[in-house]
């Protein structure tokens, strides 16, 4: 298994009065080639967890396996570039990391840092801009003049241009309007299906988990409390209730119908299928 956490603990500011254990002996294996959602309340350790994936944080205890690397407490922050090249991490509100004069230069910045030639970097930048839905005609504009949604796409393009195998995103839809977040999630699906990226998304939005993700990891109080397929997860009503998870609309509606005497088959996750199933029950 190429990405795995083995008894990983992480403590912020150890040995001080502010010491805080953000991860406690986390065991977790991420399936490659899938979209995995990481959910859990604020402060449950989600962000700390994902920062281990490209060794921005090194475990206080235990080890993290990423692709062919093993990251432990002792691993000196050298040769980390080869790791960071393979695991792209997009932080929350990534639009704040733009700094170059032009959109094109900003997207080229990552690949150049990883030793890609100027020519190749430019080629990649133009490609990834198209992939994220940015019109190449604005490539020569200053990124600071663009709208928030555009900036975020450019920031994501900046990571994609490095061509990582694994893409990790921390709340990528925060602050976007409904259509903006929908097309953002569709972009990740495309990256996963078409470009075969392994995608990890930290999110609070259960609709997104249900509609776009394959697997789900639930963090709580620094521990991974469950890790399963999205399908299984949303079928386990008791667990959802225990974890205080807001049930997505389709499933909530289905539950209400079941209470009223109309039980529909399992595995319905989208609106159209739900409507058809209802119609099938009502119409002869």
């Amino acid at each position, binding site marked *: 298994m190429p990405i795995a956490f083995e008894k990983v603990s992480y403590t912020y500011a150890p040995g001080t009065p502010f010491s805080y254990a953000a991860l406690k002996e986390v065991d977790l294996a991420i399936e490659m080639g899938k979209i995995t959602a990481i959910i859990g309340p604020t402060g449950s350790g989600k962000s700390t967890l994902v920062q281990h994936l490209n060794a921005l944080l090194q475990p206080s205890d235990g080890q993290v396996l990423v692709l062919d690397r093993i990251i432990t407490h002792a691993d000196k922050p050298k040769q980390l570039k080869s790791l960071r090249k393979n695991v792209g991490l*997009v932080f929350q509100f990534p639009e*704040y990391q*733009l700094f170059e004069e032009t959109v094109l230069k900003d997207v080229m910045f990552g690949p150049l*840092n*990883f030793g890609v030639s100027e020519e190749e970097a430019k080629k990649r930048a133009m490609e990834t801009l198209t992939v994220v839905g940015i019109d190449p005609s604005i490539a020569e504009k200053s990124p600071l003049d663009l709208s928030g949604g555009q900036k975020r796409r450019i920031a994501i393009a900046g990571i994609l241009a490095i061509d990582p195998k694994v893409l990790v995103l921390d709340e990528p839809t925060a602050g976007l309007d409904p259509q903006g977040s929908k097309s953002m999630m569709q972009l990740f699906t495309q990256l996963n299906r078409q470009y075969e990226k392994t995608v990890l998304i930290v999110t609070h939005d259960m609709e997104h988990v249900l509609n776009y993700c394959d697997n789900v990891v639930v963090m709580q109080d620094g521990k991974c409390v469950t890790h399963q397929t999205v399908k299984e997860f949303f079928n386990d009503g008791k667990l959802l209730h225990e974890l205080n998870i807001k049930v997505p609309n389709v499933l909530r509606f289905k539950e209400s119908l079941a209470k009223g005497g109309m039980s529909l088959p399992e595995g319905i996750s989208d609106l159209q299928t739900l409507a058809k199933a209802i119609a099938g029950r009502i119409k002869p």
Partner: protein
Amino acid sequence: MSNIALGRYIPLDSLIHKLDPRMKIIAMFFLLIAVFVPAGYPGYGVLGVFIVSVLLIAKLRLNFIFRAMKPMAFMLVFLLMINVLVLRTGYVLFSFYGFTVYSDAIYQTLYITFRLALMIMITTALTATTKPLDLTLAIEDLLGPLKRFGVPAHEIAMMISIALRFIPTLIEETQRIMKAQASRGVDLKEGKFKEKIMAILSLIVPLFVSSFQRAEDLADAMEARGYVPSATRTRYKQLKRTLKDYIMLFVVLLLLGGLITLAFVV
């Protein structure tokens, strides 16, 4: 960051912590003057004992004071070298490789060391026992009489207090941007000169952009809540002088007077 001891507030509950910050600032000034009264080693002895007792009353641990002084060590070594080279008075202490060290060189260096140590202890006694915000209020009050001459006392205090409020936020922001750029292959430690410049730019530009954004938002929020810089406004935190403050200042003045007598009269 947490290693910096100089100028840091230590939240403890002591008599010194409770004193009025304005009176503490005034007392600090008198004590700093006392350091420069040429009362010789006996004078420094008295002053030293006084300040150490103040620090002990403030429940500060003395190793904290030593940590505050650490940054000065390099300066003192440098000073000693200069003195050894330059000062050729007093009696000969020893010589090596044809080089003679005179007593005054050591004497002078010790003298300056004592002064510096005293000054650091005095300022630490103020900053470690007074909340930064209370210090700004005190500065505003003390600068108050200068308003007449166009000194914007209130604005200065407001600027300092907002800066203090945003330091943790900006540190957090810097760390976040550093991590975000590290994910894009930025390496501040290695790389060629040009790469390093780019690495630094990749931190500074975003930090500036977001700081301007914050400043704009904050200005909006302040204005929306009725803040007008030039208008009169009341103040929630009222500084109060009590008898204790006057006694403290009296003791300090007594000490200063004593040292002056020791230096010039005796």
